[in-house]
């Protein structure tokens, strides 16, 4: 078992074109580190230099926006499904 992560089109350059990848970790932060080890550059696209999730990247754990569940501290476990979606936004 692992955690399935759905990758949006714009980030598939980091995953060799794969729509879904697998990773491990107890928290979203640990999962992102694990993903970055396998798919270098991914973390930079998700997390700011200050160590927070980018404002315009949405991450969902089992359909729940992690902004409401502790952001990078959100607990994750085997079998969870994580979806990453860039915001559709502008001025």
């Amino acid at each position, binding site marked *: 078992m692992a955690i399935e992560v759905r990758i*949006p*089109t*714009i980030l598939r350059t980091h995953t060799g074109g794969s729509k879904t990848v697998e990773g491990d970790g107890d928290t979203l932060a640990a999962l992102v580190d694990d993903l970055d080890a396998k798919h270098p550059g991914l973390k930079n696209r998700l997390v700011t230099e200050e160590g927070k999730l980018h404002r*315009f990247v*949405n991450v*969902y754990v089992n*359909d729940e*926006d992690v*902004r409401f569940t502790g952001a990078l501290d959100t607990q994750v476990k085997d079998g969870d499904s994580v*979806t990453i*979606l*860039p*915001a*559709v*936004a*502008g*001025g």
Partner: protein
Amino acid sequence: MLRIDRATYDAIVAHAREDHPDEACGVVAGPEASDRPERFIPMLNAARSPTFYEFDSADLLRLYREMDDRDEEPVVIYHSHTATEAYPSRTDVGLASEPNAHYVLVSTRHHGEQTGLAGDEVEFRSFRIVDAVVTEEDVEVVESYLFGHSPTTVVYD
């Protein structure tokens, strides 16, 4: 070039007109890699602002899940500018994250109550935004996609 049917074109303009002075936004989905905008999906502007738009995060997830299930992608992503020209702003360029989409901008700065009235000049323009580079493209309005491409088309550039 963006090729779009008349009904969808009109629906986008009508949505922009309705939500004025706030920005309106939405998607036209189509079969993956088809480049055919077929399914008009107006979205709520969660920012409810005259200068900003953002899809609600739960709506965004539902939208992408649904497109995924139907083997669709966002062929058109549209939003309106309500006081400035129909050209991508710096924010639009910075946040554009669908390199395969046509980014449609509608300006309602000079709009009337409905199409055809004097003084109604809703601008409708389409762009590609890839790696922060904006490229404008022609818009061809076709009468219908249903029976192939109708010969009676109007090209707006």
